[in-house]
């Protein structure tokens, strides 16, 4: 199979997954207790008022009609209308997506930037104090719930020392980019952006960082013990070249797979972190929509999250296949 056919096959599989997500998410509203009408109407609304609201929202239509209409609208790029907020779902969801992607990428940068060097260092200095320290650090990161870590970070660095903002997203990465050509000073805008994003990025990225550190360490140890590394050393290649060109490259193949999966998880799984930091992303929109039984918005959010997850994984598969051509034929 060629590389192109491999990517095409993965993409079609991804489309199937997205369709599954759409269907499951649509079905969720009918198996989850609680009616959207109660989110719109006051508790003491008459049954007549409830029926009028149900009719206005289209909730009195048969299930297959609602599903068919939803799929048809979706194919036209219409995610529907939030009957709770009275606004287009597309606008609501895509207004939140940049914040979530920004946070996920920032968390990934924090995680990757620290974890791979730490994992390599830990493996190459096995059983030395730095290895013990890195192991302790990564175990702590894996074991710490990110909501607790988030609250602690806020208490220490925002409330006590007033270094960062407690919550919100007052400055975004777009502001930083604009400051390069605009009137706002770049360095100041960058610092202001960091004041908002640093704590949530650390809270979200810590587990990720710990995981990659452990994975890099064990992968490096595994590779460093293999015959080709011994052979390379026996040929007199510099140790640095052996470690970072040969061993690390092979170590990175499974790491990249996990990176891809985790990036998807970061996009969809930032719900708790976003809630703790009041970060205006998809996670807080999902929570709010669940609480309000705003099904169209919830469906739209989950479809975007699911699609992002699938896209990232297709991309990872492609990179994986590029790094290891054997995957294509397997």
């Amino acid at each position, binding site marked *: 199979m060629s590389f192109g056919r491999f990517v095409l096959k993965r993409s079609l599989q991804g489309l199937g997954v997205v369709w599954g997500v759409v269907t499951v998410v649509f079905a969720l509203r009918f198996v989850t*207790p*609680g*009616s959207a009408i*109660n*989110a*719109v*109407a*006051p*508790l*003491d*609304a*008459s*049954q007549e*008022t*409830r029926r*009028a*609201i149900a*009719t*206005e929202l289209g909730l009195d239509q048969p299930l297959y009609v609602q599903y068919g209409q939803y799929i048809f609208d979706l194919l036209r790029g219409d995610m529907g209308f939030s009957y*709770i*907020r*009275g*606004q*287009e779902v597309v*606008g*609501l969801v895509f207004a939140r997506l940049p914040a979530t992607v920004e946070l996920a990428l920032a968390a990934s940068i924090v995680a990757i930037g620290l974890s791979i060097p730490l994992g390599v260092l830990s493996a190459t200095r096995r059983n030395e104090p730095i290895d013990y320290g890195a192991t302790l650090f990564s175990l702590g990161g894996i074991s710490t719930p990110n909501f607790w870590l988030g*609250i602690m970070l*806020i*208490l220490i660095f*925002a*409330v006590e020392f*007033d270094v960062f*903002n*407690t*919550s*919100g*997203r*007052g*400055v975004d990465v777009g502001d930083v980019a604009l400051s390069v050509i605009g009137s*706002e*000073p770049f*360095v*100041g*805008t*960058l*610092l*202001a952006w960091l*004041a908002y994003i640093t704590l949530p990025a650390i809270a979200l990225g810590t587990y990720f960082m710990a995981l990659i550190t452990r994975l890099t360490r064990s992968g490096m140890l595994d590779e460093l013990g293999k015959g080709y590394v011994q052979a390379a050393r026996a040929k007199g290649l510099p140790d640095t070249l052996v470690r970072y060109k040969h061993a690390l490259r092979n170590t990175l193949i499974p790491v990249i797979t996990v990176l891809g999966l985790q990036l998807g998880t970061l996009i969809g799984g930032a719900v708790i972190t976003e*809630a*703790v*930091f*009041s970060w*205006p992303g998809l996670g807080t*929109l999902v*929570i*709010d929509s669940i*609480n*309000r*039984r*705003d099904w169209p918005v919830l469906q739209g959010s989950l479809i975007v999250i699911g699609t992002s997850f699938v896209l990232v994984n297709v991309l990872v598969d492609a990179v994986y296949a590029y790094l290891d051509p054997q995957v294509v034929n397997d």
Partner: protein
Amino acid sequence: MRSDNDDHINRRTMLTYAGTAAAIGLAGCSGNDGGDGSDGSDGSDGSDGSDGSDGSDGSDGSGGDDAFDIGVTMGQMDSGLDPQDHAETNTEIIVGQAYEGLLDRDKQGGIIAGLANDWERTEDGSVRFTLRDGVTFHNGDSLTAEDAAFSIRRIVFDDVGIASPQKNDLGSVSEVVAGDGEVTVSFEGFNPIAFQLFATNCEVVQRSWIEENDSNYINRNANGTGPFVVTEYDSGNEVAYEAYDDYWGDDNPVDGLTMSASSESSTRVNRLLAEETDIVTNVPPQEVSRVESSDVAGINSVPSARIIFLQMRYDVEPFSSQQFRQAMNHAVDVESIVENVLNGFGSITGQPTLEGHVGHNPDIEPYPYDPEEAERLVEESGHAGAEITLQTPIGRYLGDVEIAQAAANQIDSLSNVSCELEQREFSSLVQDITTGNIEDKPHFNLLGWGNAEFDGSQTITPLMTTDGALTILENEELDQLLADAENTEDPDERVETLQEANQLAHDLAPWVFLHQQFSVYGVSSDISWEPRSDEFIDPDTATRQ
């Protein structure tokens, strides 16, 4: 002082200039602004359904040189800016900065003038509102009687645009007529609480603006007559306002307002303590001491219009026995719950109507905590050995699960009753509670009820009369008392009838009467602001310390 948005600007500005100074040696500063304004004057009370009038018109203007910005952080944002297409307190707080009703309420819940500076009942029982002169919408157009009439029609008649969830909030309106600077509203029958209803509900929109725009636009923009103009709307995240320069009312000392939300109570408190916001809502009891011990903020609380209780369905055993229901009231130590679970932020109740509301009966004492009396009444009821389950929502009301746990434990500690607790997600529980069929409702559950109209009938009718949407009781005598109260045109007689109904409700004990919930706010030390009992937040009444 620093508010959320203000802080954002300050912190951003600070960091911007700090960074820039470090980089290129530049520094800067920001100024403040605020236009001139002259005083307006206050309206007079027209409580309990009587006619009323405003003192005089206020003149426009915003805060002047002392104007400042303010930030408010709530638990949840709005569900869109259409003032007539929602039924939520948080949404009301957000849209209520830009929109106003014909009548309004003061901090204690008394009726005061709004867009109408005169209101009276006509001979045929209709109500007439005379509109204030010189009121303009934020787009500059003048308020007309047709706008006010359209606003009422849009709420109560399904064929005027939307099926408003507020349809029942104005009573059974039959006709709305716009006259020369006045609006007359007629009802199907006599409506004794028309002014109470209009003081709480019915924000006025501009007819042409509504008809020219679609729902998506109306829910993302605002064009009211209120003290604040929406300048930026970030759905679900933040709404920014500035003072409306041509506002008809009193001087607004607040120049800029930012409303935002944090669902996590600890985050709200942290924002307050980090001086990123000025007012935070629903400070949980366990966070109160942290706020009070800080030197940047304090706690302001006020008894709210919300009552918390345990409903018992009259048609199922053992709750079909009045003695058993009374026994449950004696079994629960409400004083201890208020003290230990709510940190004192609640007051004990013994009737459905709260103190200060129309129809409250001052002669009724709450059921005393008396486990022995409870056991005796259970024996007499013939339901000794009863096994009951209390259902409670999770996180809907202040300390709801902990309150229900305490109550269930206290009932379970009786020698002849065992009680279990079932925690339910609110949406799930409310689906059972709001079913039109009493047979589908829970037997025993915790619920809260906000009475923004400050009138006892607005609690007893929906929750205790036979045809009430949420009723768990059927009692002809109580039904008749409420019907009498509904039909009487004499306010004093009506109060007496409602007091009698409250005494009967106390004796029938369809609820375990728990407490009146308090609204607990964290407030920055930089400002002085008194909360309202109807849970609405009015930042324009804040002053700088």
